[in-house]
C-alpha cells in the first residue's frame, strides 16, 4: 500500500480514537462500572495510538513499536475480561471466560519468554481476539429479551468489539507468517484492521452517546412512574 495512503489511514484512525475518547470523557458522569472500564481502555488506546503515530512518523525509534502488541493486547483483554465479569451473567460462561483469560496470560508470558518483548506476539493477539469474540458474542446473546435492545449502549459496543475481534482473527493469525514472507502483503491487509477499527470506534461513539441519552431519560421516567 502506498506510504501516503497508509499515513492517511493511520491519521484517520488516531483522529477517530481521539473523538471516541473525548466523547467518552464528555459523558463520564453517566458511566456505570462497565463503561468506566471501556473509558479506561479508550484512554489507554488514545495515548498509545497517538504516541505510536508520533514515534512511527516523526522519530527514528519505530523499532519500539514491534513490542506494542505485548502491551496493548494484555491490557485490553484484561479490561475486556473485567467487563465480562461486570456485565455478564452465567456461571459456566464466566468460568469459560476465566479459564480463557488465564490461558491468554500464560500464552503472553510464554511468548515474551520465548521471543522477547520486541516481537510481534501473534499467539497473544490471536488468542486475545478469540477470547474477545467469545465474550462479546456472549454479551449479545445475553441481551436477548432486554427492553429496547437497540437503545442499549452495551449492544452497540458489543457489536463494535465483536466486529473488531472477529473479523481480524484471520489477519492476526497470519501476522508472523506474512511479516516474514512479505511485508507488502501485510500492509495491503492492514485495510481490514483499519476498516474494523473505524467500525469499532464509530460504534463506540454511538454507545457512549446512547449511554448519556439513556441516563438522562431515566430520571424523567422515574418521575413519570412516581406520578
Amino acid at each position, binding site marked *: 500500500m502506498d506510504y501516503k495512503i497508509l499515513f492517511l489511514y493511520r491519521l484517520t484512525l488516531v483522529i477517530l480514537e481521539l473523538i471516541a475518547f473525548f466523547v467518552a470523557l464528555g459523558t463520564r458522569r453517566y458511566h456505570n462500572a462497565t463503561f468506566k472500564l471501556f473509558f479506561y481502555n479508550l484512554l489507554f488506546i488514545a495515548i498509545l495510538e497517538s504516541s505510536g503515530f508520533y514515534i512511527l512518523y516523526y522519530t527514528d525509534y519505530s523499532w519500539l513499536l514491534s513490542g506494542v502488541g505485548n502491551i496493548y493486547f494484555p491490557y485490553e483483554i484484561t479490561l475486556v475480561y473485567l467487563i465480562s465479569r461486570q456485565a455478564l451473567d452465567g456461571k459456566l460462561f464466566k468460568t469459560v471466560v476465566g479459564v480463557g483469560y488465564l490461558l491468554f496470560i500464560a500464552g503472553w508470558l510464554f511468548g515474551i519468554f520465548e521471543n522477547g518483548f520486541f516481537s510481534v506476539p501473534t499467539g497473544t493477539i490471536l488468542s486475545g481476539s478469540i477470547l474477545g469474540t467469545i465474550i462479546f458474542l456472549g454479551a*449479545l446473546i445475553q441481551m436477548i429479551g432486554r427492553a429496547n*435492545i437497540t437503545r442499549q449502549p452495551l449492544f452497540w459496543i458489543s457489536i463494535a468489539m465483536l466486529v473488531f475481534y472477529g*473479523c*481480524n482473527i*484471520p*489477519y492476526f493469525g*497470519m501476522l508472523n507468517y506474512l511479516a516474514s514472507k512479505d511485508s507488502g502483503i501485510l500492509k495491503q491487509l492492514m485495510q481490514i484492521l483499519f476498516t474494523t477499527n473505524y467500525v469499532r470506534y464509530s460504534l463506540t461513539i454511538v454507545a457512549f452517546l446512547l449511554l448519556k441519552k439513556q441516563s438522562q431519560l431515566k430520571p424523567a421516567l422515574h418521575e413519570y412512574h412516581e406520578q
Partner: protein
Amino acid sequence: MNIMNNSTIVYSVVFTSLAILLLIAGVIITIFIAHRQRTRQEIALAQMQLSYEKEIRTVEQEVQEQILANLSRELHDNIGQLLTLLRLQMEQEKLDMDDKTKFDGMDNTLETTIDQVRMMSRSLNSDFIIQAGIAKAVEIEIERLKQINSIQIHWEYDHTEPVLTKDQRLMAFRIFQEMLNNTLKHAKAKNIFIQLQGLNQQFLLTVKDDGIGFDLPDKMNNGANGLKNILKRASLAQLTCDIVTQKGGGCQYTIKNF
C-alpha cells in the same frame, strides 16, 4: 511444500474476514429475531396475566356488588321496615299520652336513623347507582356523611350528568367511596372539596382535602392496598385515576374518563 502466492494469501485472508463478518451479521440478525420472539412472548404472557387479573377483579367486583346488594336489601326491607314499625308504635304511644312532647328527642333520633338507613341502603345498592346516575349517588353519599361527620364537605357540581357506561358509573362511585373512606380514616382533614363535572362528555370527579397528606411512592411500595385498588378498579373501568399528594400538603384524587 506448497507455498501460496501473494494474491492467494490476500484473497484467503480477506474472504475469511468477510465470512466472519457475514457470520457476525447472521448472529446479530438471529439475536434480533430471537429478541423479537421473546419480546412477543413476554407481551403475550403479560397480556394473558392482565386479562386473567381483569377477570378475577371482575368476578371479585360482581361478588362484592352482590353482597352489597343483599346488605342494601336487608337494610331497606328488614331494618328499614322495623324502624318504620317502631315509628308507628311511637305515634300510637303518643296518642295515648298527655305530654306529646315527651318523645320528641327519640322521634328526631329515629327519624335520623331511618334517613341514614335509607341513604346507606341506596349507596350500597348498585341498581340505584346505575339508575339514578353518579351525580345523584354522590350527592346522597355526601348528605349521609355530612350527618355523621364533623368534617366540612364542600360540594360543587356543574349539573350535567356525566356520560358513562353502567359499569363505569358503578366503578366510579365505588372508587369515590374508597377515596372518601381513605380521607375520613387517614387524612385528619378539616375540609373536603368534592367537584363533579360532566360537560362535553368529559367526566371529572375530584376529591381534595386539606389533611396531612402522605408520601405516595412510599405508600405504594409498602402495602396501601386501598390505593392500589383504586388504581386497579379505575383501569378496569377504563377510567384514569390520579393521586396528587405530599406530606403536610393534603391530597387530591381525580378520576376521569379522558
